């Protein structure tokens, strides 16, 4: 099968959806003629014009609130934040309005609002350009939160996001978006709430999020050489969260590690641990472990930056520690 990048894959899904549905439009800084700082919309301005690929002023709160109203009145807006960090200026709109309007209108209004942005630590982007923040959106009712990890999933999950009448956060890790992978030409969707078992194994289960999936697989390759077989699960969406697939795996392996680049406290790993403890307690042969990035703002200097993020070696060690329990 042909191989294209993660970002090309989402662009394909976006292009075909925009061709079919004239009510879809995109707003963001530099997403017009420039095609997006991360090439999210490259080539689409020429096809769909300035009204549907709308360059904006630096008014994150303003255009999120605007797109909220647009989604209430018959169009399907996409907000392209470039760096997800900029979403924080729009938190009031998102938590008090976007996530609540379907409920407060007793379902008579829909909220087909797609929010996308690049997340993640890397490239000495420093603390204003390396946020993750997805646990916040998993905490708040009303959102769908997608963490795609490869080109194939990116296309299918983005297609699903484009069809959703709920607000969706589509969060693309900076270190993944230019990775290539096999992607079918035809359109397809991947349902939210269905995890992918990325690697089968029976000694332990590792749930890895976003950029941690590839690093975990690399660690598992190494361990496999010693005959240690690890099961790796990529939830793909954290809201909804496919806890059943995780529970089934833990039932098989008896051991669970959650690897996440972002902060541990009140994070996704905590939620998964709490659910597995509550529902799979008797399956556990060892304490559930978490491996997270350090609980700190992101430093700029490369040696500091490298020190705060889990890597192949620290993941391998965490798995060994879990097996030793």
């Amino acid at each position: 099968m042909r191989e294209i990048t993660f970002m090309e894959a989402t662009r394909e899904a976006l292009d075909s959806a925009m061709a079919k549905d004239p009510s879809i439009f995109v707003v963001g800084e530099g997403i017009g003629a420039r095609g997006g700082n991360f090439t999210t919309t490259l080539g689409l301005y020429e096809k769909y014009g300035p009204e549907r690929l709308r360059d904006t002023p630096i008014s994150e709160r303003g255009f999120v609130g605007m797109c909220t109203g647009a989604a209430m009145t018959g169009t399907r807006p996409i907000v392209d934040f470039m760096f997800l960090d900029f979403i924080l200026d729009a938190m009031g709109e998102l938590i008090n309005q976007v996530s609540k309007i379907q409920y407060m209108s007793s379902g008579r209004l829909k909220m087909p609002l797609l929010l996308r942005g690049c997340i993640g630590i890397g490239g000495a982007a420093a603390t204003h350009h390396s946020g993750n923040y997805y646990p916040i959106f998993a905490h708040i009712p009303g959102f769908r939160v997608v963490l795609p990890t490869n080109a194939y999933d990116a296309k299918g999950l983005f297609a699903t996001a484009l069809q959703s009448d709920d607000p969706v956060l589509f969060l693309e890790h900076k270190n993944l978006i230019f990775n290539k992978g096999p992607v079918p030409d035809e359109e397809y969707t991947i349902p939210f709430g269905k995890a992918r078992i990325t690697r089968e194994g029976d000694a332990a289960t590792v749930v890895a999020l976003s950029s941690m999936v590839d690093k975990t697989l690399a660690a598992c390759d190494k361990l496999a050489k010693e005959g240690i077989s690890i099961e790796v699960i990529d939830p793909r969406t954290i809201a909804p969260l496919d806890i059943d697939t995780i529970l089934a795996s833990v039932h098989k392996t008896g051991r669970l590690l959650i690897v996440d680049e972002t902060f541990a406290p009140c994070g996704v790993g905590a939620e998964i641990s709490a659910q597995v403890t509550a529902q799979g307690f008797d399956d556990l042969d060892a304490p559930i472990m978490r491996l997270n990035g350090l609980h700190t703002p992101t430093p700029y200097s490369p040696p500091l930056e490298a020190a705060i993020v889990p890597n192949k070696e620290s993941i391998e060690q965490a798995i060994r520690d879990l097996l030793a329990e």
Partner: protein
Amino acid sequence: MSNEDQNKENLNKETYLELYHDLLLIRRSEEQLAKSYAAGMIHGACHTYVGEEAVATGVCAHLRQDDAVFSTHRGHGHALAKGVPPREVIAELYGRETGCSRGRGGSMHLFSPEVGMMGTSGIVGPTILQATGAGYSFSLLKTDRVAVVFFGDGAVNNGAFHEGINLATIWKLPVLFVCENNMYATEVPFAYASGNPDVGNRGPAYGLPSVIVDGNDVLAVYAAAGEAVRRARAGEGPTLIECKTYRTRAHSEGMRDAGYRTQEEVDAWKARDPIDLYRAYLLEHNLAAEDDMQEIEADVQAIVEHAAEFAQNSPWPDPATATNYIYSENNSQDHEEVQHA
């Protein structure tokens, strides 16, 4: 009435009487809600619109059902003027399943998309942006629909005002930004909270037309809104309208209303009650007869009384439905669950 009488267009009698009807419907509904609040029938906050009726009435008189209105915590009047039945507004504040938000919202969350009432908000600011977005939809979809947002003077110092007006202006969106400057945000005077005591003179800073209107003069509001709606439908872009008006009751029912404004000030504004002024104006200029108005007064009285009874006799929402409607996918399914619950 106001000194711009001369430059008032002549309307037909029906219109004059409809305006009177709407003014009165809001006033009597608010008076009913105040009574209901005192009687303990309303469970949360209740911000009445008494004294400001001319603004919603004069603006909404120009709107079609497919136009969109966005409002504030003080939104009963806007909902009524946009055509939400009084019984649904009162039932909502009573917390009943028959309310316009099915009891989910209460006073500060009135939704009735069926008639273009797109919502009020307990948070000051956001609906300014949402109206801008409705304008974006209407222009992208090539319709001539318009969006209107009502907001208080308190919202003017908020970033939402700045960002929303700029976005609507640069993209020429069909939006009316209607500021109800009643001089106070709760008890904080606008003259203290803003370096500029006016709002309707800020258009040049943004590049859109802006006007200052006597918000207690329904015909002055009607005239200004008419021109702004015409511009919006014609694709000429947004307008900022400041209506100088006054809230004659407390900020919210049950709240102490002292220490921040003088009795003289309140009395002076009561003497300019928008309904009294308009009624006198119609008679003085023989635009309507005493009986016409008495007939309307009786009708409105009956409507509001029945609405209150309806609300009083309406069922409470089923607790088993408390988590319905959060996600669109689940809505129908949730209903199922409820039935089987």
